[in-house]
């Protein structure tokens, strides 16, 4: 059974391996350059605020519009695209194509139970998919290390405000991509078993995996670990903007927490309710300046309520996220194995 699985998977494995090799070459050939830029900018040894600021500026200008930006986006895109493609091209055809060509009737007439037939295939393709995504993620982790380290030193206004916890980048780091790959493959398999036609199964797989990956950071990830709630006195530096109408005022507040994942951040009154006005005299009067308006609001002694995931929770969040996806994948794969044993196919 292992022989047949490998024989059928061989071509796809070679194609996927080649894509991975090209990427590895791309990352290796630029990765040392990026590390070099980090050192020559003086970021490695900078201690004082001033020298770090200069080094950062040097590093940022070296990044802007460079090949590094391009490679970074390509790699991020592929880490997300990879699992979806694994689901659509490895998972979805697994059973459906054999139903379409009738070869399932040949395969299931050999002296191998269909559970074993499926489990061997799931193990081989699923693990290969996870290994590939894991390798890509590992390479990108090494490659992007200088950029993340620089960002940890930077203030948000320098334009280098990336963090491993921001929704988009979180999914390209650590073990989360392994979970995505396993999950996407299992979704493809389930679509394959239920729909039994390759193209519709591929389309459904892409749609489901896409939707889940997009919806996840907003709807599920914040609930994996209850965010830290912090309430501090509102300071003028935190106010990024405001809008005023005749009866109400709304503040846009931004906390300076560069490496955390801020989920919500707002100005609240002493009762803990969001501050909505009414507008102060300074803000209502046209003659007064923006700064006077801000000062009049600060004088109200409002609080800033922040809900966030601190940087220290990165690996815990990664573990929960990958674990949840893996669990979903295992449940789906087990359900598929159970389902084909009910002999609904062929």
């Amino acid at each position, binding site marked *: 059974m292992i022989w047949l699985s490998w024989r059928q998977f061989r071509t796809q494995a070679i194609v996927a391996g080649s894509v991975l090799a090209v990427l590895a070459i791309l990352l290796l050939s630029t990765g040392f350059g990026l590390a070099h830029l980090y050192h020559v900018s003086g970021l490695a040894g900078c201690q004082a605020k001033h020298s770090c600021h200069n080094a950062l500026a040097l590093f940022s200008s070296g990044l802007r519009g460079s090949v590094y930006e391009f490679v970074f986006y390509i790699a991020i895109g592929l880490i997300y695209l990879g699992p979806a493609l694994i689901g659509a091209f490895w998972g979805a055809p697994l059973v459906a194509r054999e139903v379409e060509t009738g070869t399932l009737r040949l395969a299931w007439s050999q002296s191998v139970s269909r559970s074993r037939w499926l489990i061997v295939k799931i193990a081989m393709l699923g693990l290969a998919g996870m290994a590939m995504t894991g390798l890509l993620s590992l390479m990108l982790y090494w490659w992007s290390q200088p950029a993340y380290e620089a960002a940890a030193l930077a203030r948000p206004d320098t334009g280098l405000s990336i963090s491993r916890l921001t929704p988009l980048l979180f999914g390209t780091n650590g073990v989360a991509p392994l979970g995505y790959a396993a999950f996407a493959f299992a979704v493809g398999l389930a679509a394959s078993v239920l729909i039994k036609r390759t193209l519709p199964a591929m389309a459904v797989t892409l749609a489901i995996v896409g939707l889940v990956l997009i919806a996840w950071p907003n709807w599920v990830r914040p609930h994996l670990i209850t965010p830290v709630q912090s309430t501090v006195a509102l300071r003028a530096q935190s106010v990024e903007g405001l809008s005023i109408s005749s009866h109400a005022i709304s503040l846009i507040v931004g906390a300076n927490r560069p490496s955390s994942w801020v989920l919500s951040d707002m100005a609240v009154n002493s009762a803990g309710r969001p501050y909505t006005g009414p507008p102060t005299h300074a803000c209502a009067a046209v003659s007064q300046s923006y700064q006077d308006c801000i000062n009049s609001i600060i004088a109200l002694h409002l609080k800033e309520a922040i809900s966030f995931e601190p940087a220290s929770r990165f690996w815990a969040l990664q573990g929960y996220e990958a674990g949840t996806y893996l669990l979903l994948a295992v449940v789906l794969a087990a359900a598929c194995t159970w389902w084909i044993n009910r002999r*609904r196919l062929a």
Partner: protein
Amino acid sequence: MTPETPVLKTTGLGKRYRTRWALRDCTLSVPGGHVTGLVGPNGAGKTTLLNMAVGLLAPTEGTVQVLGGEPAGSQAQLARVGFVAQDTPTYAGLSVADHLKLGQHMNPGWDAAIAEDRISRLDLDPKQKAGKLSGGQRAQLALTLAIAKRPEVLILDEPIASLDPLARREFLQTLMEVTAEHGLSVVMSSHLVSDLERICDYLIVLVSSRVRVAGEVETLLATHYQVTGPRCDPAQLPADWQIISASHTDRQSTLLVRSDTPVVEPGFTVDQIGLEDLVLSYLSQANSTAARGQKELETQR
């Protein structure tokens, strides 16, 4: 397996797809040691029956046993049954040699010598991709796979329906050779009676899930007579005659009679009947029964 264990036995077997019954209340028993032909019109449920016999489909109701065991119930059971599915599927992207390797890796009882011998006798290039083979060669490859796993029973679902006459003849030739060499029981479905006549020694006629007639071909031929004579009333014919079909002109009646004793009746001409005519009579009998049922339904409305 005792000699009495039927190779295929079904009791009240039925399979429903949503609201349509592909097979319903089918009870039959195929004895071992025969090359059995399963004949019936398209839609009689032959493929459904055989797919259930090899465990590809689960019955909606009733039971099915092959060699006394549950179809595909265990690895041992899978190894005992060789199956060539309808349209003889093979992996288009795999070569002939790959298919043999597949068989070797997936069957503990695989006999490589048989497989290689068959491939060389068929003059197939082992490096040829199965997708590039002709229909006849593909069917032969599928048969080779089913034989080389050394099954006790070989089940074939319309393996020759889509082949040209020459390929059909060659396929049946191979089948006859291996049956004789390995002492296999064979169950083979077809709607081509003339082909079955060449190789089958046991026949089952299946029409709308019902067994119309079943028995050894020799016995069937020996107990069916075509009787021609002046037009007569069926009620006046001898009581031990079982009239399978009757057609009448103004002056003459032609009957297919089943009788365990030789038919001798003054004034009638009695002829032996060929297998094809025999089967067709049973099939047309079923048709007229169905037509009558239809009429009754219409008058009820």
